[in-house]
């Protein structure tokens, strides 16, 4: 069965007041994410070894295989964007008590978490992602991955929050100012309520 573009869990105008304009969402979801889904389906159609596999299985079997880099790139980006849309909300920014307690335990403070996340996001050179993950040791960590990679591929842990730092995510709203985009994303857009620890 072909992979499909998931509907956004909000309208394309819903995040404009929070720093992500309608045009960014329309392009990012309707063009960029759609292109990854279309490309992935094209690869699956041509390769019997990919048919019947789940998205997670395709990310994992193509990971680290140079000949399968285009498959990995597009499967990874489909996986990443599915999470990204769920990770934002028109009422984002508020951190529920249980998560706040865990952030303070593992980072020292909410501010220290945001600083670590922002550092990961701004030091990812070129296109990629910043992540809040629950490590296999049970601790929260901030990490980064290039291009279409993700914590499923690196095996570092369970992805709780993923912030896209490809320039297409922020160029219309913030242009070159990635640090401002990430700060705004953490403060106003991130859907902390949707995180299941």
């Amino acid at each position, binding site marked *: 069965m072909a992979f499909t573009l998931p509907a956004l869990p909000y309208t394309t105008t819903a995040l404009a007041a929070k720093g992500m304009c309608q045009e960014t969402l329309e392009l990012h979801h309707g063009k960029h994410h759609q292109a990854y889904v279309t490309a992935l389906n094209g690869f699956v159609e041509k390769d019997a070894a990919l048919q019947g596999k789940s998205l997670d299985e395709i990310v994992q079997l193509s990971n680290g295989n140079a000949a399968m880099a*285009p498959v990995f*790139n597009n499967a990874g980006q489909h996986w990443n964007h599915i999470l990204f849309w769920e990770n934002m909300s028109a009422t984002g920014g508020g951190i529920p008590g249980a998560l706040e307690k865990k952030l303070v335990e593992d980072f020292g403070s909410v501010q220290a978490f945001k600083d670590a996340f922002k550092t990961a996001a701004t030091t990812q050179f070129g*296109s990629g992602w910043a992540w809040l993950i629950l490590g296999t040791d049970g601790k929260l960590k901030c990490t980064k991955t290039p291009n279409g990679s993700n914590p499923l591929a690196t095996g570092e842990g369970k992805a709780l929050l993923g912030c896209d730092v490809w320039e297409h995510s922020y*160029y219309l709203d913030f242009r070159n100012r990635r640090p401002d985009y990430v700060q705004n994303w953490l403060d106003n857009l991130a859907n902390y309520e949707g995180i299941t620890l």
Partner: protein
Amino acid sequence: MIAITRRRALFGAATLASVYPILRSSPALGQGAPAAAGPFSLPPLPYAPEANEPSIDKMTMEIHHGRHHNAFIGNLNAAAKDFPQIAAMPMHQVLQKIGEMPEAVRGVIRNSGGGHANHAMFWTIMGGKGGEPSGDLAAAITRDLGGMEKMKTDFNAAGVRVFGSGWVFVTVDAAGKLALTSRPNQDNPRMDGQMVLMGNDVWEHAYYLKYQNRRADYLTGWWNIVNWQAIETRYAAAKAGTLGI
């Protein structure tokens, strides 16, 4: 989709600032933040920022040069305080010797040194009217890259294939032989001992304000503002052993 088309029609026009009012409150885009003082400086654009319209809009040129390139200069100057050796020789030699540099400064050389070299080259090979090269370079394109039309087609395809940020280049060796290649992020072929004849930036910041997700259209339109005379000069310099970044 109708809504996208309507708004897209506004792009590239003087109405951009009204679509994104936040732009009005920014400092003058061409100036950028002053880079940390030091041995490196931002080379001025060799033409007005609107000189590449309509292929590349004025605002993109201003941000690309005044902010993105300038950030690399600032990073290099900051690094030169602790690692003066990165300013002790021409940048193309620094890139070529990246493996001999202290490990702590290799990341800055790769990303900001490469970024400086790539962009310094990029500005000088635009501002033209497209068309075709002549003389030795035209002959080399026919001999090594299958002629102008095939070169453009292959160059554009290589640019589209770069996944994420990067560059597509034509390299040249000391004998004048050309080859098509691409690199991720700000990697520069000098890091592998090759010389750059020309290249196009396919980071999204190079085209997003005007072309959004349509990188292929940007690559196609770019040929109309290529300065072949400048590239012919680089070709001659490569063969003479005097080509820098």
